[in-house]
């Protein structure tokens, strides 16, 4: 057999940390948010479509929240307007949560991997 001249110093991977449980917890979050494969059956197609639409709504909802906070910080809203805007965004958040529950989606499901650009949210 022709071997490459690049024999490794050690081929067995080692994992080194003093905080195993913390990393297991955090890495589980990453794993759960990886895009799942889409099987072409009626139920998963419906859920996949709902996930895509709700991700876009979530993205816009977060933009609206940021804009509202910027306007609140900028001082160009009266206390009544702040209250009204806050209530509207609260309602929107609650409505989106209802839809997520209906389609069995968690918060971390609402994201899109845009490849080299990164993640949408």
């Amino acid at each position, binding site marked *: 057999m022709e071997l*490459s001249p690049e024999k490794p110093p050690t081929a067995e*991977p080692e*994992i080194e940390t003093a905080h195993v449980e913390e990393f297991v917890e*955090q890495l589980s979050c990453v794993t759960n948010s990886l895009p799942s494969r889409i099987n072409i059956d009626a139920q998963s197609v419906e859920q996949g479509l709902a996930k895509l639409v709700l991700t876009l709504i979530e993205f816009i909802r977060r933009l609206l929240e940021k804009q509202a*906070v910027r306007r609140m910080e900028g001082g160009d809203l009266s206390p009544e307007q702040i*209250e*009204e805007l806050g209530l*509207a*965004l*609260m309602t929107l958040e609650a409505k989106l949560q209802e839809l997520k529950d209906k389609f069995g989606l968690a918060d971390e499901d609402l994201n899109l991997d845009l490849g080299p650009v990164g993640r949408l949210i």
Partner: protein
Amino acid sequence: MKLYVYCLAENIDTLATSLAPVSGISGAAIELIKIDDFSVLVSEFHGDAVPVNRENALAHAAAVGSLLNETTPLPLRFGTVAGEQHLRSYLATHREALKAKLDQVRGCVEMSVKIIWNTDLDEQPAPDDDVGPGAAFLRAKRREILGGERRAEQARQVASWLHEQVRPLVRQDEVSLCPTERLIVAAAHLVAREEVAPYRERLTESRKMRPELHFLVSGPWAPYSFSNIELEFKTRFGVS
């Protein structure tokens, strides 16, 4: 017949006997086939899609990892399945790009560093007694947004610090900031095999400087983060 494709390699003609005990996906025997200048690690696969489960993920990693004993392979994405003719066509079409990728990772392995920030960065909430629920909601959002911005800035600083610590020993890096709320940096480093021991020593020293950070260092792995050939393959063949 379809083939499950694990990785591409060069300068290797047959499997080492040490690979014999390693089973591929669904327990299939893995084999090395030669296509032009490439050695391709494959196993036979019967079916349309590879179930994503622990057993298959470990089988994929074991097959790719075993080849790492002999050379530095270019791993393909988990679940890559193609007919042999498609595989030949793909390799012929992308020969130059794949050769360039192999040049890039030759003699190297991937090391991984993940860092958790162990301090609460969130602003303590002010009392919301004087405002209605709408305004309190917006105040909470403000704290959330500012906390996120602080975490992002902290992550950038930590990533920059890490880069400086290992820079002389790293050929290339891929860094992800804030993949989760507390995991602020996930870095993959392409390290020459002979530099792995000094790299580990350097990190051990660096970790002592930052007791507020929790580290997970792992490797050596095949250069998964530096292959980046799976999407093109997927698009071309529509594999699962």
